[in-house]
């Protein structure tokens, strides 16, 4: 049972206090979007063996959504950061590079 540190309230929360919210950094496509873009937004998801970015909510706690970068193989957590961003911040990317040189995820590396 994994634990993640909530970047808002600092609690090292265990899984029963959290709610998993799927892949992070999706771009919303609205009414004017193409069928392809909208389909990708709704349905296309990464399924990596390794570095992954996810959304979590500290649901039994401060209630805030945050992002977590972790390894789906080993459950190693590279970092957590607030949800108010459209891409992984540099310090998180650096932390991943330090441990998984050459990693890529979507357009990020």
């Amino acid at each position, binding site marked *: 049972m994994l634990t993640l540190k909530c970047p*808002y*309230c600092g*609690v090292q*929360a265990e899984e029963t*206090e959290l709610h998993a919210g799927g892949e992070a950094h999706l771009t919303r496509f609205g009414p004017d979007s193409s069928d392809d873009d909208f389909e990708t937004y709704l349905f296309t998801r990464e399924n990596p063996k390794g570095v992954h970015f996810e959304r979590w909510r500290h649901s*039994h706690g401060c*209630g*805030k959504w945050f992002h977590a970068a972790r390894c789906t193989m080993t459950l190693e957590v590279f970092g957590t950061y607030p949800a108010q961003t459209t891409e992984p911040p540099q310090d998180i990317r650096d932390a991943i590079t330090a441990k998984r040189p050459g990693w890529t995820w979507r357009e990020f590396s």
Partner: protein
Amino acid sequence: MSEPVSALRRARYAGFVTVEEAGLQGMVQIRGDLSSDAFTSAVSDAAGVPMPGLREASLDGRNGLLWMSPDELMLLCPYPEADRAMARLQATLSDTHHLALNVSDARAMFTLQGNGVRDVLAKLAPVDMAPDAFRPGMLRRTRLAQVAAAFWLRSDTQAEVICFRSVAPYMMELLSTAARPGSAVGLHGG
């Protein structure tokens, strides 16, 4: 009109820790920008206590401020004063984007008393209750068994728990079961 009643009308259970529903408690839910001095001083004035830090409970008798999230506080006050505290806040912050609501009836509050309060909470919450990890004045929002709750310690032998009103009977049963004689863990006193 009759007097309002709390969820369990001060139900009480004496185990190795005494569990008591604390009766009516004024609560005002406040949301706003905690980094704004204008906001925090208005809140602190209305509550009559200093601003709590991250995950802290700032308490003075029945008055207090609970740190609930990065943009949320809970003001504690005597039940009849909640509307006044809310109105005062709303007036002071009329030009500031904020939220202040009297939610005194939405929750139930419990008092735990005894040497084993840490053990009782450690049976129900995935929280490190060791004295060096969770000290009086700290607050934790988490779950107790299957329901959302927040708790804090007033001292090493007194804790307070709040939860939603609808699950007050569950919470009473839960805390009483955890405090049942013969079930003390003896790890953190009790």
